[in-house]
């Protein structure tokens, strides 16, 4: 849509865009000045991280910082994702799918080939996170991609996963992370100060749990609502065989 001459005239008489652009240019100039005035020969905390890398349980400095030295931030990040899906689920129910005739056999078979491969790549990313680029978020995102593909292609059974299992999967990552954090505290250290000889296996445990939960959370966000057949206790229908609920 090209603006007509009249529109342009109206825009010119409106002082608001001018003000905003002056503010943005001013901010950019200020930021540029600050960045240019920073000393260039510092390494930040690189040396400190490198010195303590052998105690962290990971050989990749990024993973060491994310899960060990600044594990608290990552724990809160995982909690934020969890809160996001809690918010979405409390707002709406998942929209009805029911467009089955639309999906072409090509799409279905491509997804059938791609989804297991993506799960494998996700698992590999989590595994290599301890020594190369990768980790729980990247692996989880690839897992979520596989989930989204399966939802879009309307694979059978994908929307019929019991709500109880979904809830357990969403909680798994944060729960494992918290459990390890508290366990470290009970063992005598501070919150999230892993014992040195067990750090690598603890990191892998946390990363695996978090990757599964992150993948499930992101895919559930894409579906955009709580499952149709939710827990009987929450849909307010009489349920005689209602055992313990997870929430």
């Amino acid at each position: 849509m090209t603006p007509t001459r009249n529109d342009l005239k109206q825009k010119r008489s409106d002082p608001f865009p001018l003000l905003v652009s002056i503010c943005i240019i001013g901010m950019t100039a200020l930021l540029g000045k600050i960045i240019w005035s920073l000393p260039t020969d510092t390494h930040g905390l690189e040396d400190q991280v490198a010195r303590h890398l052998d105690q962290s349980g990971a050989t990749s400095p990024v993973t060491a910082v994310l899960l060990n030295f600044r594990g608290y931030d990552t724990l809160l990040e995982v909690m934020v994702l969890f809160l996001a899906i809690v918010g979405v689920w409390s707002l709406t129910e998942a929209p009805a799918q029911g467009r089955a005739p639309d999906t072409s056999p090509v799409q279905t078979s491509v997804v059938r080939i791609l989804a297991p491969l993506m799960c494998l790549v996700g698992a590999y990313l989590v595994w290599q996170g301890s020594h190369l680029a990768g980790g729980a978020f990247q692996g989880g995102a690839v897992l979520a991609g596989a989930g989204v593909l399966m939802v879009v292609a309307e694979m059978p059974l994908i929307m019929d996963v019991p709500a109880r299992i979904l809830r357990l999967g969403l909680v798994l990552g944060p729960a494992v992370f918290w459990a390890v954090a508290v366990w470290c505290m009970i063992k005598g250290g501070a919150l999230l100060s892993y014992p040195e000889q067990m750090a690598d296996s603890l990191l892998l445990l946390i990363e695996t749990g978090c990757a599964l939960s992150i993948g499930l959370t992101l895919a559930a966000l894409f579906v955009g609502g709580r499952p149709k057949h939710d827990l009987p206790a929450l849909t307010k229908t009489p349920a005689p065989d209602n055992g313990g609920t997870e929430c």
Partner: protein
Amino acid sequence: MKYLLSGFDIILVFTLLWLAWRLLATEDIFKAVILFISFGLVMALTWVRLQAPDVALAEAAIGAGLTGPLFLSALRRMERIHKQERRLDFDEDRDDDTHPQ
């Protein structure tokens, strides 16, 4: 090789700025979402050039791969709601038309 890489960097920077500008200026939300996805992919390339492969992976997977489809599904849902509202309006109009008869 060095000049080639710096040339590539310069192209990356200007592509990023241009994509960001187009994405903010476009009126069509669908087009903006597609531009956002391409912005994420170019951003991932930029992270690789900045020697941050971890961030590049996360940006490509989450920024471009998942946020884009998330926007698209939100857009589809918005359109569906709009259509329902419009249909309701239409029904009301027809009711009004039939009343005098």
